[in-house]
């Protein structure tokens, strides 16, 4: 085909201008994170881009150190000749009690799981309570009993704690913060930056159960569905996987922001592409249904008892078998692969057979009007 020279140069000019615009955006993208809002909004707590910006611009900026910098679920410290994992997590949930558990279960399992995701054997927890004036003691007792049961199931003890009471109207009944320590006695180095092309992505069971359960339990939707939270300790499951696949690159529990957010963190930290097969992602029909009604994507909905693992491609069968060897991992599945390019992106082959980019959300997934 012959192209007239004038047309060719015009095409080139257009291309150059487009490249200029893209370069400018890239420069803006590389600037240090900055919080634009004057006040904290709910989006800053949703686990998405707004949370990341806040953490980088405020906390990382103030606290910067090598143990914090990877921003993993917990920090691993070389101490007294061993490796000690430390983590902390604050729990706010409304309602406090929901099908499948309560804030107490979340507070224990959440911190146990953050420890487990570093490859540690959880040892002990602390628990701090911020209680609102007027909160029924009977409910607090139920929360404490749930924490005790969850701690026993996870093989940890709650060894220290603190209690504060705030005036009526200044709290939401009960907030709990738990911290945990664990011992990393396996020779593992798990990190969100360790994923490599050729690796595979596993998830330990159906996603989105917890988030949808809590949304329905709030009662705003006037929907009833047979579903309960997936809150569960994952340290045994993580142990099985690490025994079977010592080369496991990383483990994350898919809480706030869901699986999509974690995969975006992996893609960015490891400078790889994560390619997900939507048809392979396990989702219970009731979760799919609720998400369809609300116009939200289960990939962004929180789980409280599911882990995402990245393992070398050659270990996929061993990894999957290890996860499926425990009831909590019975629904485990391979959902994707790691590729080298385009680095930093999560790509999805949709169930419909198309492809798209799965971005990290700014804040909470919001129901759509249209």
């Amino acid at each position, binding site marked *: 085909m012959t192209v007239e020279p004038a047309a060719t140069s015009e095409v080139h000019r257009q291309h150059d*201008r*487009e490249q200029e*615009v*893209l370069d*400018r*955006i*890239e420069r*803006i993208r590389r600037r240090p994170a900055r919080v*634009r*809002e*004057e*006040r*904290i*909004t*709910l*989006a800053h707590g949703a686990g998405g881009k707004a949370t990341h910006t806040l953490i980088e611009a405020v906390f990382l900026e103030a606290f910067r150190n090598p143990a914090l910098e990877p921003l993993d679920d917990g920090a691993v410290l070389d101490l007294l000749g061993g490796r000690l994992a430390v983590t902390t997590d604050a729990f706010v949930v409304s309602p406090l009690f929901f099908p499948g558990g309560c804030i107490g279960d979340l507070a224990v399992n959440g911190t146990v799981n953050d420890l487990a995701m570093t490859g540690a054997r959880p040892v002990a927890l602390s628990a701090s309570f911020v209680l609102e004036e007027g909160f029924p003691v009977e409910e607090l007792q139920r929360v404490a009993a749930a924490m005790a049961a969850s701690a026993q199931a996870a093989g940890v003890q709650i060894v220290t704690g603190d209690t504060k009471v705030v005036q009526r109207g200044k709290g939401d009944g009960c907030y709990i913060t738990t911290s945990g320590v664990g011992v990393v006695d396996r020779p593992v180095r798990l990190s969100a930056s360790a994923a490599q092309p050729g690796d*595979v992505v596993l998830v330990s069971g159906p996603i989105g159960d917890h988030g949808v359960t809590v949304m329905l339990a709030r009662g*705003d*939707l006037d929907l009833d569905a047979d579903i309960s939270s997936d809150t569960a300790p994952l340290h045994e499951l993580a142990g099985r996987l690490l025994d079977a696949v010592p080369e496991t690159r990383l483990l994350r529990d898919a809480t706030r922001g869901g699986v999509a957010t974690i995969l975006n963190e992996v893609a960015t930290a490891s400078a790889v*592409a994560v*390619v997900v*097969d939507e048809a*392979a992602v396990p989702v219970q*029909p009731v979760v*799919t*249904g609720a998400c*369809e009604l609300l*116009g939200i*994507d289960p990939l962004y909905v929180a789980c409280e008892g599911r882990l995402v693992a990245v393992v070398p491609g050659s270990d996929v069968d061993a990894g999957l078998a290890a996860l499926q060897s425990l009831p909590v991992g019975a629904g485990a599945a*391979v959902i*994707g*692969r790691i*590729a080298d*390019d*385009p680095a930093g*992106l999560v*790509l*999805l*082959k*949709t*169930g*419909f*057979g*198309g*492809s*798209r*980019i799965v*971005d990290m959300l*700014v*804040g909470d997934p*919001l*129901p*759509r*009007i*249209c």
Partner: protein
Amino acid sequence: MRYVDEFRDADTAQAVAAQIAALCEPDRHYTFMEVCGGHTHTIYKHGLEDYLPEAVTLVHGPGCPVCVIPMGRVDDAIAIAEQPDVILTSFGDMLRVPGGRGSFLDAKAAGADIRMVYSPLDALKIARNNPDKRVVFMAIGFETTAPSTAMTVLRAAAEGIDNFSIFCNHVTIIPAIKAILDSPDLRLDGFLGPGHVSTVIGCRPYEFIARDHGKPLVTAGFEPLDILASVLMLMRQIAEGRADVENQYARVVPWHGNRRALEVIGEVMELRPYFEWRGLGFISQSALQVREAYASYDAERIFELPGVRVADPKACQCGEVLKGVLKPWECKVFGTACTPETPIGTCMVSSEGACAAYYNFGRFNRSHVREITLTEVGRS
């Protein structure tokens, strides 16, 4: 899932895509606008464009109801929310839309009582449960949501609930389509008509598009196969030299619309002389306001509003991007004054808007993304 999976079947999609490809004439390009934001969402969510031949392009239209609300109206709503004893209620996706001085989320953080609801009836429930508060519903959307807003006003009147009002920002679809059609540099070959809106207004109001402008329109459903089938219907019309209004979404959309819903809208609301659309400017008779008879439910009459118009910067070229005349990066303010964090025009507000999508992912080659995705998934 029943009633959903059958409209998402990849094999059927392949077959429809092949029929679309077969109708493409060599060296001809086809550009269709999907008017409705719901369609844009489906196209994006399912990666539907992978099924379209290179010669077919879909342009995202002005039908994202939260994106077209001008900044001044967001500011007005926040001014209402800042009044004493007011609870402002809003659909979820409106919360993040920025006005001239922040979004609802920012106003909430600054102390305003702003709550997310799933329907105007939920807002009425809040009014019923909080008799000492003034509850205002931020009413937005096309003819799709206007009936439920109107119905809620009627119910409030019937129940004698006098602490409830609506801040009416309902818009109508036909004037927006007209504004696009009247553009001298229009480059569209046809339209995918808005399915939800059409359940209310029917298909007849679109007839002028075919008759006077010679452009085909197919009212389309919201599942990915609905959209592919609608594109095929448009391609067939073009191949046969026709320009008609056709209804792909007949399982939901009656040709004559929903008379009862239209009556309810007409009872409570009337056309405004003009209304500003974000990015498109003022369009006459393009929005609804509360009738005098229901003045006590009209937040615009109850509250004093600043009513300050926050002008879209002159350089904003959303209109041209919407019409397919300009690519996002060709707009004068793209990536400088207008970014996803500080959006000026509609195309940047929603993450699915043409400009926001280009800002976030324009550096990645679309066909490369597709190739990597299909190859890698094929491996596992």
